[in-house]
């Protein structure tokens, strides 16, 4: 039992992180905290992939000519490099949107923003005055 747990230690961490992140995304009203939750959620998937590719006792996948050498699988690690880039872009875009939301609504709390929604929207469409005059 204990040995089994120790063997899948990485995956237990993955599940805990995944649930923590997902819970924060769903339950937190603060937009920044939602973003943090999303990052934790994505990070759990990174660890999942990295654990998949790791062989017990495996070394870095650099060919050394010895047929007995055990290599780790580099492909999941490379995939996660891409996923990390996507994750960074997502976080950056999310934080940029939060900045703009804070400027427009004066708050980053979801309940306050929803309450403010009913009021007048920010601005009118920019339209040429010549047509408006007609």
């Amino acid at each position, binding site marked *: 039992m204990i040995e089994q747990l120790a063997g899948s230690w990485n995956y237990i961490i993955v599940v805990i992180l995944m649930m923590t992140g997902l819970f924060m995304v769903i339950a937190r009203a603060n937009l920044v905290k939602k973003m943090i939750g*999303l990052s934790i959620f994505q990070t759990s998937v990174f660890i*999942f992939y990295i654990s998949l590719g790791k062989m017990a006792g495996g070394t870095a996948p650099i060919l050394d000519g010895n047929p007995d050498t055990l290599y780790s699988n580099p492909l999941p690690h490379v995939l996660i490099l891409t*996923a990390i880039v996507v994750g960074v872009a*997502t976080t950056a875009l999310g934080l940029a949107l939060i900045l703009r*939301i804070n400027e427009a*609504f004066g708050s980053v709390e979801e309940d306050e923003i929803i309450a403010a929604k009913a009021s007048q*929207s920010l601005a*009118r469409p*920019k339209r040429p005055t010549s047509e408006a005059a007609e």
Partner: protein
Amino acid sequence: MGAAILTNLPALLVVVPLLLAPFSAVLPIAGLAWVLALVGTGISFLAALMLQSVTENGVRISYHLGNWEPPWGIEFVVDSASSLTLVVMSGLGFLATLAARRLVAIEIADKDSGKFYAAWLLVIGGLFGLVMTADAFNLFVFLEISALASVILIGMGAGTDRRALVAGYHYLVIGAVGATFYVIGVGFIYAITGTLNMGDMASRLPDAAGGAALYVGFGFMVVGMLVKAAIFPVHIWLPAAYGYAPSAVSTLLAAIATKAALYVLARIFFTIFAGTPEIVDIALSNIIVPLAVGGIFVGTIMAIYEADIKKMFAHSSVAQIGYIALGLALATPAGISAGFIHIGNHALIKGGIFMAIGGFVAALGARASLETITGIGRRMPITATAFLICGLSLAGLPLTAGFISKLYLVRAILETDSYVILALVLISSALSVVYLWKVMEVMWMQPAPARSPKLVENPAIYLPLWMVALGNIWFGIDAGWIVGAARLAATALLGGGA
């Protein structure tokens, strides 16, 4: 030279929009950025038409990016199914770009126009890649390219309505969770099969002792794509996103964005998991069919109670996506071709409707609601008539494209003897007339408020709009092309192997 271009068409379809995007971002003149976007989408449309004519006879193009042999390298696959989706998406993308010139000039600040068209091209290029790629992880990358770019486009609606920012944020978070779910699923399937190539996965899955990992991986992949395709109950991001986005963006996204995700869903079911039909059958008949029917009703009923026109038709999109998903989930050749027919026709219908709403918003200088469009039928006859045609097509009146969709969907359902679903589809069709009638009654039968200013109709908006509206009539009368192409698509999809 000519031959080199022809053999590299699949790659060009993605490369041209992606390459033009950064140029468009730095162009100081808004008009030039639009020309770039128009050139990019125009070339894509031509390329998609060429690919379609090549794959018409069941030919399957396998393009190896960078000449790396699959399964090691990334493979683009164009068969009758993906080429039909590509033609629909690039055609409507081109028309939406035509209409965008005027809509963007009104709603987006001039200094942001370059960046707007850059994001626009990224969305289109990303969606093309999504449809063509046969690499499960590469698909995630294209998914995120188009999703992040569409969040930017939606957020640009903040100039006219600050709620666009919140809508964009929610789409970003929900979409990112969906995409991450898909990646988790791919991880499981990769762990079982040791490959990322879809065709390779399909051939290895039946022999691989997957066990629970197979079910978990399948579930995560499907749920992730359900979010992106906006299928009930994970559609909640869609009404606000389409409702508050700039008019041009609503047109583009409503016409083509969810279609790509629906096509990917079909490929997950019928290509990747073709070798394990037992789990696909359970998922389709016990989960996707009820969800699709649920989405049809929720979308229609929400549309009936909505007073804001853009949000009303966004809710109606949820219902229409339900019809497409229902057709695909029947998993019979007739059902899948009905799904593909509606992918094409719904793009025509919703593209036209959102273009017309854009025309109203541009002339009114205010959000289009049941109140503001009162009597607009006589004040803007050209735009409103095209809107009427698209609306009738949405309701499924004979001689319009929408009728063909409903006809083939009903036939496909009759073939499977599921009369409960048939009854539900017919009831929901009748319900959709309720909200359409509400809009048409306000537009055409009520007088405009006294002393209302004269509204100017702009040919830059109504010319592309009428092309779409006439398309609705054309494909309603002569449906031979789309029906034939959809049949071939269904055969290609069910034929197994990617």
